[in-house]
């Protein structure tokens, strides 16, 4: 009991923050909407085998181009595959890509940003100039160029997005790190001889994590969208993978009549990106309010 009390006392403000955040999410209609979409998306990805009505790869040439019906809620494609099942399984690819890429971005960007912000000087200058250049670049074009250079595959898509995306995190981490690093308790920790590495990762990093998480949430929608775009151009997953962008691209040839082949996978992309953007937006508002308090 005593330990718990002590912990509660020590983390009083953090707990207050979390409570405040929960309150604000509960009160914000848009945040709730976003959270609902994301939850459904994640559940679909996890329970895909139970939700899908068919094997997503199973072809049935006698049942091609079926419009949406009770049997095939989203219709069938040019190979007679059930689009609903493909969209359901596609959520796994999207979620996996989104999370992996975001983790990579987060790790690389934050580490470089912290290093730049903490040490300053030439290191800072070099890292920041690189971010300048990458950010001056149109990101989709750079991603296409990198993905094309590496050769089309899911993995290379992720690498391409990571190369394009890390500077945002680096800048955010650097700016916040520079603010925190001059606080009294960091000075104090430095004075008692805490090593730089420890200082960065166990003292500064926890202080600046909230804006980075918000950034990651907002970014997840963008990553999923970019990945789908590369998939659409044929630079990502290859057939017959049920990747949403690729599916939209496959349906393109039949758009004059069979709208559902492209229609439903694209709708899925829109919804998931919308979910992350809604939640990210609300989180950012919350963060703003907290900063201003």
């Amino acid at each position: 009991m005593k330990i718990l009390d002590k912990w509660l006392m020590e983390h009083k403000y953090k707990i207050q923050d979390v409570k405040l955040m929960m309150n604000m999410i509960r009160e914000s209609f848009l945040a709730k909407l976003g959270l609902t979409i994301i939850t459904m998306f994640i559940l679909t990805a996890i329970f895909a085998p139970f939700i899908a009505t068919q094997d997503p790869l199973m072809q049935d040439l006698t049942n091609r181009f079926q419009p949406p019906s009770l049997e095939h809620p989203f219709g069938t494609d040019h190979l007679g595959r059930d689009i609903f099942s493909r969209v359901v399984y596609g959520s796994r690819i999207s979620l996996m890509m989104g999370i992996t890429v975001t983790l990579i971005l987060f790790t690389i960007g934050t580490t470089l940003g912290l290093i730049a912000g903490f040490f300053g000087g030439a290191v800072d200058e070099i890292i920041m100039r690189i971010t300048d250049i990458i950010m001056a670049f149109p990101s989709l074009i750079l991603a296409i160029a990198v993905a094309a250079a590496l050769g089309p595959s899911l993995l290379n898509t992720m690498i391409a997005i990571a190369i394009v995306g890390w500077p945002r995190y680096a800048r955010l981490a650097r700016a916040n790190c520079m603010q925190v690093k001059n606080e009294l308790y960091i000075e104090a920790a430095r004075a008692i001889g805490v090593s730089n590495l420890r200082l960065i990762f166990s003292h500064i990093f926890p202080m600046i994590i909230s804006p980075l998480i918000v950034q990651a949430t907002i970014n997840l929608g963008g990553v999923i969208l970019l990945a789908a775009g590369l998939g659409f151009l044929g630079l990502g997953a290859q057939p017959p993978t049920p990747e949403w962008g690729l599916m939209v691209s496959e349906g393109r040839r039949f758009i004059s009549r069979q709208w559902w082949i492209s229609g439903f996978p694209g709708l899925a992309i829109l919804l998931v990106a919308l979910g992350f953007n809604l939640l990210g937006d609300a989180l950012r508002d919350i963060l703003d309010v907290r900063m201003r308090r």
Partner: protein
Amino acid sequence: MEKLLDVRDLRTYFYTYRGVVKALNGVYLTIKDGEVVGLVGETGSGKSVTARSIMRLIDPPGRIVGGNVFFEGRDLLKLSDGEMMKIRGRKISMIFQEPVIALNPVLTIRTQIIETIMANRDVSVNEAEEIALELLEAVGLPNPKMIMKRYPFELSGGMAQRVFIAMAISANPRLLIADEPTSSLDVTIQAQILDLLNRLMEEGRISSMLYITHDLGVAAELCHRIAVMYGGRVIEFASTEEIFKEPLHPYTRSLLKAIPRLGYYDELYTIPGRVPDLVNPPSGCMFHPRCPYMKDVCKKEIPEYVEIDNSHYVACHFAGVKDVR
């Protein structure tokens, strides 16, 4: 003298994510015609909110939830937005704490002063221009023609405040609300602005004024009567003389002790404790956690705002009882 302004039980709340901030908890305040009333209190006591509530300039998430603001016999809170707009600038005008940010950064002084004159008086642009030049001269700005061409960021704080005062008095309002007009300025400039306000009153350009300040000393110089605010209420209201000679509320007495006096540099008295949290205010009398004379009743009951002597109002359970001190 008739009452020009009569504020009764004014309540303004802010609905924030932290909870409801009860910024005003029943403010009573009167201003007679031709009178200068000081509104004094610490930061966060509700002085500015009172001023803005009278002007009906409370933005969401804030809201005036109750009370009356009678001005010339009419309740301002019951007017339509259009009617209220005609009160602002013409009948009641206001000057602000930070004049530089109260002026629009991307418009010239000329635009801002002329739009004010034309909004409140039925004149042509040319006439407005002449009035503007005359007013700028009256508030002691040298070379008004130059000033008119300037942008706000090209003015010093003192100059900007003079410009603002010129705009505020342009329609000869009956009441001027001055919201800490000098606290963002240098000490010498402060004195100049106070002199200016005094002179404008003598010249009859300002008739009545509500002067908000955290400095009891400034209020004493300028005001006929002083209202002391604490925790979103006026807790004492009397003539300046009585406030200084016979303060009844313990908080007023602490404030008086906190005024630095000439020659007394050694020990500045500060009031122990903190300004109350208006989301979770203390029970009973809000001052009880800091009050040296606190009794049980102070924790339980909110003291009423009553007239003790002739026109000496106070909200304290022991205001009439002399021996408690």
